[in-house]
């Protein structure tokens, strides 16, 4: 990506660039506060789950969060700088040895546990 494109990208989206995102990585448990618009009404949905990948760079970076809801795996892919993402809370940091945890997809219950990470 050229420097010019990177620069322009930040310029046009200046009001939406988030500089206060907490640091978190794959394996961590996060809580996403998402603005949902349905039927002309707005509400905030909280989605809590495990980060299984962070993808992309700069303004177009996205995060994939997975949780198991009622026995069904649910994954949400959210652009980190999206105006719909109001807040990210880090609930727990875990130690993992890879950046993408797709192997979590095959796991349920106790198998989903990870060891805590310092810092």
């Amino acid at each position, binding site marked *: *990506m*050229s420097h*010019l*494109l990177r620069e*322009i*990208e930040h*310029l*046009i*989206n200046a*009001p*939406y660039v988030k500089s206060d995102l907490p640091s978190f990585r794959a394996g961590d448990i996060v809580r996403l506060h998402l603005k949902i*618009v349905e039927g002309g009404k707005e509400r905030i949905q909280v989605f809590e789950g495990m980060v299984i990948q962070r993808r992309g760079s700069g*303004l*177009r970076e996205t995060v994939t969060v997975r949780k198991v809801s009622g026995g069904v795996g649910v994954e949400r892919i959210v*652009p980190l*700088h*999206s*105006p*719909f993402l109001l807040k990210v809370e880090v609930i727990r940091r875990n130690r993992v040895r890879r950046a993408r945890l797709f192997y979590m997809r095959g796991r349920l219950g106790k198998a989903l546990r990870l060891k805590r990470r310092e810092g």
Partner: protein
Amino acid sequence: MAGLIGQKVGMTSFFTPNGDVACTVIQAGPCPIVAIRSKQKDGYAALQLGFGVRKSKHLNKPLAGYFQKQGVSPVRILREFRLSEEGSYEVGQVLDVRMFEEGDFVSVTGWTKGRGFAGVVKRHGFAGVGGRTHGQHNRERHPGSMGSNTFPGRVWKGKRLAGRYGNERVTIENLQVLKVIPEKNILIVSGSVPGPIGGILLLQK
């Protein structure tokens, strides 16, 4: 209305309170008017615009003479834009992105990426012939039947086949201008635009 010559910088996201829009960043202008064609003299009304800077080592003598005669510093690209009416323009006058405003709809012309000699699946969206199994080993991306037998006893003219694909002039109409940044000669339009990054584009209202 005259247009502008530009260059594709790349694509990115444009965030709005209602979500994000895919957009193309175009560096457009400034374009000096190099010559004016008039109905009286040339039979049609148009402006010849320039874009970029042509280094002196790339300037041959006939072109050097032409730029000197017009009194415009040498540009890399010269293109004519037809005008419906003759306007009050002057040679040497410079057009830039301020001719467009946010919310305007523009047409963008470019040359699509050349794909060389492409098969029928890429070129015409054919589905190919069946799968990999059942004894088949080499026809996944083939065109299949060419037509009927006794009637017409030949292949119809215009039958879509493999061949050269891409590298053609394409105009995309009604792309909305999302933002204009005059200090950097940048125009942001919604959606995609033909051609590679760095490709030359013609913009018109």
